[in-house]
């Protein structure tokens, strides 16, 4: 990676997060590093429980109290050297202003006893120093640009009066209110219909191209990621196991886990009553990490070496395509 490339918005180095429960310690995120360039989209893909959400919440310091970020972790963001060195007060100025997040389930992430207009206006009042009238005007404009019909009336409604799609648009409006440099979208479309999903993703892509915003898109659907992202990182058991540009990953999957994820998506060209290729077994227990490759127990290509030694991320033929596998697809095993 050379330095003549466009500016990096975010650089995460060796991020590890441990969660202390009453019985044991869970290694939720394990030594994750990645870069994100200005105006680009990174998709983080993985099954539930693979540590995607914890990873992103640790960037925004929104982790529960029981979670501990390892000391050697470094998060470099656009001009600030290391986010983890900032005091709480300094960090509050960045959160919501420069880095914003769309949370998983829109219905439950909005405040049920607060009018949606006020919820969107909150960050404008706090960060931009607007008065209430200015904020209201800006919010209505924002709601209109999010494709919400009749924003003047919606402004005074509560979340339970809105449909799932509109709630998600409100959640996006909250995140985009201050024109952030980096947007973290945590499963923005999981709870929604396919049609609404397409609309929401189009909307995000449009806003992104307008404002040159960088985006981290968290999803469990590899299909969504490939169609929408520039770069894709596949996470499994708290680690990134494969990372590549979307087109490269699509045409040249190296890691068996990624291929299995891809194969489990139902396709339109399948005949009726097709048996889908699914990944047998359960994701590993993160409280007791295994010695070798974490995917070995479920992998069809696993051999003795996979159980004994842990593979590290390494580049293949192309430098920007890294994967953690001893016997990747396309190489003789």
């Amino acid at each position, binding site marked *: 990676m050379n330095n003549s490339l466009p500016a990096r918005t975010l650089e995460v180095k060796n991020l590890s997060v441990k969660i202390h429960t009453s019985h044991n310690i869970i290694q939720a995120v394990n030594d994750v590093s990645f870069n994100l360039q200005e105006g680009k989209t990174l998709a983080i893909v993985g099954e539930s429980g693979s540590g995607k959400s914890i990873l992103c919440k640790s960037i925004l310091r929104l982790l529960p109290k029981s979670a501990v970020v390892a000391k050697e972790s470094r998060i470099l963001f656009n001009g600030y050297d290391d986010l983890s060195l900032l005091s709480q007060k300094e960090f509050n100025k960045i959160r919501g202003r420069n880095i914003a997040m769309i949370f998983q389930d829109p219905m439950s992430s909005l405040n049920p006893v607060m009018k949606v207009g006020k919820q969107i206006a909150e960050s404008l009042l706090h960060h931009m120093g607007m008065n209430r009238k200015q904020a209201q005007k800006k919010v209505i404009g924002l709601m209109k640009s999010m494709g919400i019909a009749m924003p003047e009336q919606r402004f005074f409604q509560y979340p339970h009066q809105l449909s*799932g799609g509109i709630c998600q648009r409100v959640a996006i409006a909250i995140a985009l209110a201050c024109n952030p440099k980096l947007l973290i979208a945590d499963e923005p479309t999981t709870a929604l219909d*396919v049609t609404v*999903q397409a609309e929401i993703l189009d909307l995000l892509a449009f806003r992104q191209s307008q404002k040159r915003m960088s985006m981290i898109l968290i999803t469990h659907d590899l299909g969504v990621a490939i*169609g929408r992202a520039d770069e894709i990182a596949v996470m499994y058991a708290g680690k990134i196991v494969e990372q590549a540009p979307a*087109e490269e990953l699509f045409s040249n999957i190296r890691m068996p886990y990624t291929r299995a994820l891809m194969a489990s*998506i*139902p396709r*339109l060209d399948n005949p009726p009553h097709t048996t889908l290729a699914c*990944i047998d077994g359960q994701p590993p227990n993160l409280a007791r990490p295994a010695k070798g490759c974490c995917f070995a127990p479920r992998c069809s290509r696993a051999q003795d070496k996979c159980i004994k030694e842990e593979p590290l991320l390494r580049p293949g033929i192309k430098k920007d395509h890294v994967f953690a596998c001893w016997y990747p697809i396309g190489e003789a095993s």
Partner: protein
Amino acid sequence: MKDMLLSVKNLTVHFNVGRRHKVHAVSNVSFQIQRGETLGLVGESGCGKTTIARAIMQFPKPTSGKIFFQGEDLTCVNNFRLRQLRPQFQMIFQDSVSSLNPRRKIINTIGAPLKIIGKAKKEERIRLALKMADSVGIDPKTCYRRPFQLSGGQCQRVQIARALMADPKLLICDEPVSSLDVSIQAQILNLLETLRKKHGLTMLFISHDLAVVKNVCDSVAVMYLGKLCEQVPSEKLYHGHCHPYTKALLSAIPNTKPRIDPQYPLDKINTGGMSSPMDMTPGLSKGCWYFTRCSRAQDLCVKQEPQLSEIEPGHNVACHFPNN
């Protein structure tokens, strides 16, 4: 004569909203399912898919229309007969976690249908429930837990086991995979397919994802605002569909190719144009209900409502200007 297991005729369901208003959740829907066949019901949320499923189950009873199950009209039979018939048609409910009783152990949840039917004694119930749990991939240890200790995929398996306990002929699946991860979704779909073969089930499969439905079903019915707009055999779905709404739904499926594939220029869904079922009163709005979002809409569409008509055997469309 084909062997029809379920035949729905002119099904209409209204709900009262306040004193004056009515929601026409389902209006004048007819379809049939042959024995051993799987029918997929697709549409956006709020189009009445779940209402149809619940109307077939008779909770609540439909406003009008007939539902023939093995030749017997379910809307006319008395409660005693309905109780006798109900083991033969069972349902898997939407949102698996909240449709299980949180205070009941899994084993009791799975065994409950047998208790209601009064078919087996307690020891026998437990034995059968464990056997069923095993066949849906739940290990015996998990059977003595409660729903909050289970993952979403496991809860879905419990629901499937519970529905199959009464040994039904017809299984209605209401969005069985919509809240699951892609990898778990594949596991559950495969499980349903195996059980369908094993028990010889006839299924009504509800989903909003056409790709899922295409993989599971023999025939697909597309709904919009409480009406059927197209019913098509699933092999013909991709290249042979005729209704603009079906086309729009197909275009919404995330492309598993980088960026958009230019080979299929598909209709984009018109944002924000969806009418509410509240505004749709059959007497008032004359035309096609989809015309507000339709790219092909012409004067005729506003004036006259298109009727569902057969263009090929097994392929029905309700559109004035159907084409590919």
